[in-house]
């Protein structure tokens, strides 16, 4: 505890940490262990929100806001977009294909966490906490708030980096376009008519056949039904539609009076 120099960490913050810290950790673990990628993304959102609160608590309200808006809001939405594009159901198989990968990763992970955690704990034992009141306002501090202070730094000391960042963003945008763009031959795109034919011009019967007892050569509303002697049935005339003469196939080929004629797609069959 940096007692003499700097600030005390208040009880409220301690409470916030002990509530949100486990939540952030649980989110992280959930992200790793969730079978479903969407669940992973949602767990990560959870962790990022917790981190955003930590930023605010640690006197970085601007960063907290950016974390929530940009990271949680924009970037994670982008992740979800791509997840949906790729296919939500392409979840991982549980079987690990690389021999010893999980064991090694776990052992190394625990070792790394132990080493770094121990190292940090040792190094920051009794570290004095200065606090940011001197630079960004607060009780008896500088007049500028957090955003003004960061802006001051960004546009003075970090101006070059800031400008270079803009170039980076432009490049990233262009790069994403180049990578995601699909070049198509002009005219290779199917028209609605072509799509429809591709779907229906098949030997099987994608549409319903006329009901039993109906001697019909077409299922167009304009084609009248036939009586058993072959003459049009007056009763089958649709109201408001002029009955049309449908070119008939030669009798004796009942199977050919199928979908083609019924659709009226045989050449010259309908008008």
């Amino acid at each position, binding site marked *: 505890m940096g007692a003499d120099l*700097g600030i005390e960490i208040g009880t409220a913050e301690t409470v916030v940490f002990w509530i949100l810290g486990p939540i952030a950790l649980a989110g992280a673990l959930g992200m790793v262990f969730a079978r479903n990628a969407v669940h992973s993304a949602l767990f990560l959102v959870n962790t990022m929100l917790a981190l955003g609160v930590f930023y605010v608590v640690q006197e970085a309200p601007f960063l907290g806001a950016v974390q929530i808006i940009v990271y949680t809001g924009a970037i994670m939405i982008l992740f979800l977009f791509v997840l949906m594009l790729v296919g939500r159901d392409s979840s991982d198989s549980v079987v690990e294909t690389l021999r010893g990968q999980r064991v090694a990763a776990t052992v190394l992970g625990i070792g790394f966490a132990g080493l770094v955690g121990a190292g940090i704990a040792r190094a920051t034992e009794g570290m004095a906490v200065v606090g940011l009141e001197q630079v960004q306002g607060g009780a008896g501090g500088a007049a500028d708030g957090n955003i003004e202070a960061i802006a001051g730094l960004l546009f003075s000391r970090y101006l070059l980096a800031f400008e270079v960042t803009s170039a980076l963003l432009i490049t990233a945008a262009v790069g994403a376009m180049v990578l995601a763009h699909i070049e198509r031959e002009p005219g290779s795109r199917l028209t609605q008519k072509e799509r429809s034919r591709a779907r229906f011009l098949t030997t099987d019967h994608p549409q319903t056949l006329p009901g039993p007892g109906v001697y019909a050569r077409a299922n167009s509303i304009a084609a009248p039904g036939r009586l058993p002697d072959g003459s049009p049935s007056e009763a089958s005339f649709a109201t408001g539609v002029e009955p049309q003469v449908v070119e008939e196939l030669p009798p004796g080929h009942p199977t050919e009076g199928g979908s083609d004629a019924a659709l009226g797609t045989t050449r010259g069959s309908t008008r």
Partner: protein
Amino acid sequence: MTLTNYLVLAAILFTVGAVGVLVRRNAIVVFMCIELMLNSVNLTLVTFARATGTLDGQVIAFFVMVVAAAEVVVGLAIIMSIYRTRRSASVDDANLLKY
């Protein structure tokens, strides 16, 4: 309760992200794990900014976010492109870079 708690939490989150990178095969999830690692580093930066009383840590965390955004855009585009040609988003399927 000291700032060390934040730092240890950040270390643990970083490790969880790293292990996630190692054990998950879905490229998008791997990517999310990397984002988690970046976030844990940001937490460290913010914490040290507070500890040292300077804003540079926060500014750098800000830059990290910007770079992460750019990286996500390009990375996801690459994943899309790979998925389009290979019909797979598994990092194990893209294993041509070998002996």
